[in-house]
């Protein structure tokens, strides 16, 4: 029993790493732009497709694919603010955005997801794992891909936190999140920071998509379920709170992994949604948030 729990805990940690890479980006966009990006999952899917193209279509080594995929999604993410968000912000002026950005990103999600469906078809494309072999613990076996996920998730999130903490542009991102007017007064151009923030978050999602591609295959809707789950995570962690999102990712993933012991696996997804609704009703600011 104990070993079983330990095994699921490790699985939960791996899953939590993926959730975190995704949810931290989502909550970063929310913190800086006050926008919930419903289309975030599609960038994860595009990351998976980019890896598929690099590894399976072009036959490049996995290491190259794992670099190309996030970079490609980062570049795509650079277009989101100037092309979509900035025009709507401009039209709204000082009026409250209300739910219009949600409708916009929901439309973007439908557009991207179905474009992928039209281009790549609906089938599940499998990608070979980036690393072979694995780690044989006496009670369980952890595949190399899972270990890679843990390492890359840890490293990329660590780099992001260091970037935000110490880099000039990272500090600017935090400054804009805290006080956009003051940020402008010290010379920070809002538009460029918004563009950079979204692209960073998208790149991180693209990397996550490339990492899970060998485990879950690549298909157009691979990101959407995760998006909804990530909403639950960001709400649990307090919207806009990066560390909160990281911790909440690990909590939700561990709960999901452990739940298999108690409830049928079809109901696994209900944990995230149930938690989200519970948190919104009991403590809407999340575990670590200030006021909502």
């Amino acid at each position, binding site marked *: 029993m104990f070993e079983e729990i330990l095994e699921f805990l490790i699985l939960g940690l791996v899953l939590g790493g993926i959730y975190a890479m995704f949810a931290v980006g989502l909550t970063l966009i929310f913190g800086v732009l006050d926008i919930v990006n419903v289309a975030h999952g599609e960038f994860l899917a595009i990351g998976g497709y980019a890896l598929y193209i690099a590894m399976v279509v072009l036959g490049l080594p996995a290491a190259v694919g794992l670099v190309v995929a996030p970079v490609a999604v980062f570049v795509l993410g650079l277009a989101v603010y100037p092309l979509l968000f900035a025009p709507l912000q401009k039209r709204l002026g*000082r009026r409250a955005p209300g739910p219009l950005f949600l409708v916009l990103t929901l439309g973007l999600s439908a557009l991207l997801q179905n474009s992928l469906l039209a281009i790549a078809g609906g089938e599940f494309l499998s990608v070979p794992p980036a690393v072979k072999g694995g780690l044989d613990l006496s009670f369980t076996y952890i595949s190399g891909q899972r270990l890679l996920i843990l390492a890359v998730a840890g490293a990329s999130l660590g780099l992001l936190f260091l970037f935000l903490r110490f880099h000039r542009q990272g500090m600017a991102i935090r*400054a804009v999140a805290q006080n956009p007017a003051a940020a402008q007064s010290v010379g920070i*151009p809002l538009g460029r920071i918004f563009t950079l923030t979204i692209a960073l978050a998208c790149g991180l999602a693209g990397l996550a998509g490339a990492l899970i591609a060998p485990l879950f295959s690549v298909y157009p809707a691979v990101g959407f379920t995760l998006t909804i789950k990530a909403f639950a995570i960001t709400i649990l962690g307090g919207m806009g709170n990066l560390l909160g999102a990281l911790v909440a990712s690990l909590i939700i993933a561990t709960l999901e992994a452990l739940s298999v012991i108690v409830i049928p696996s079809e109901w696994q997804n209900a944990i995230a949604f149930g938690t989200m609704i519970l948190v919104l009703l009991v403590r809407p600011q999340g575990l670590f948030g200030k006021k909502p």
Partner: protein
Amino acid sequence: MLSVQGVSAGYGRLEILHKVALDVAPGEIVGIIGPNGAGKSTLLKTIFGYLPPFEGTVTFENQTLQGRSPDQVMRRGIGYVAQAGGIFADMSVHENLVLGGYSLKSARAVNAAIEKIYAQFPRFRDRSRQRAGSLSGGEQRALAVARTLVISPRLIILDEPSAALSPRLIEEIYGTLADLNRSGIALLIVEQNVRRILDSAHRVVVLDMGRNAFAGSSDELRRSDRIRRLYLGEDAG
């Protein structure tokens, strides 16, 4: 150096400023006073680029400012201290100062500038790692002023530097401002505390209902019975 001519501005379609004019000469302290709702803060926001003017021109050292965003305006050498200070409350004192130098390309220049500021404000060196939001109101205001100094501005715009401060702290902040002015920085200050600004400013501009009502030296203002009655809330007798 700063010249505002015929500027009308406001929010949406609501015009608050009507053809306002204003000048600041190098090294000068200019105060803007007037009753609540006269458009004083609106004027500062328009000069600094937060609000685009409907008409009129704003120039700084013969370069056009209107139509530029705040981050572009500050790069011309203008500092801005918002009404509540506008510091980054969740960041450390040091980080606030580093961000003050965001527009400088070289990290070395930023560090040198911050070193100078620490020499000028030793208490910030002692508290460099403290959360800016945990500073007292007066210190937060001083930090906001210090933050503008990183880029060595030639003009600093301040929106009510004395608001919500005790008389002692008001004297302190105005002492700091006087020091800055002696080092050659021009100041444009919106102030509710009329007595205080009359003591410091070389010239005063009075706004009323979004229009220029008076412009002149502090002494001229003090001598004008009508202005005193209207804007200083004193009896002329």
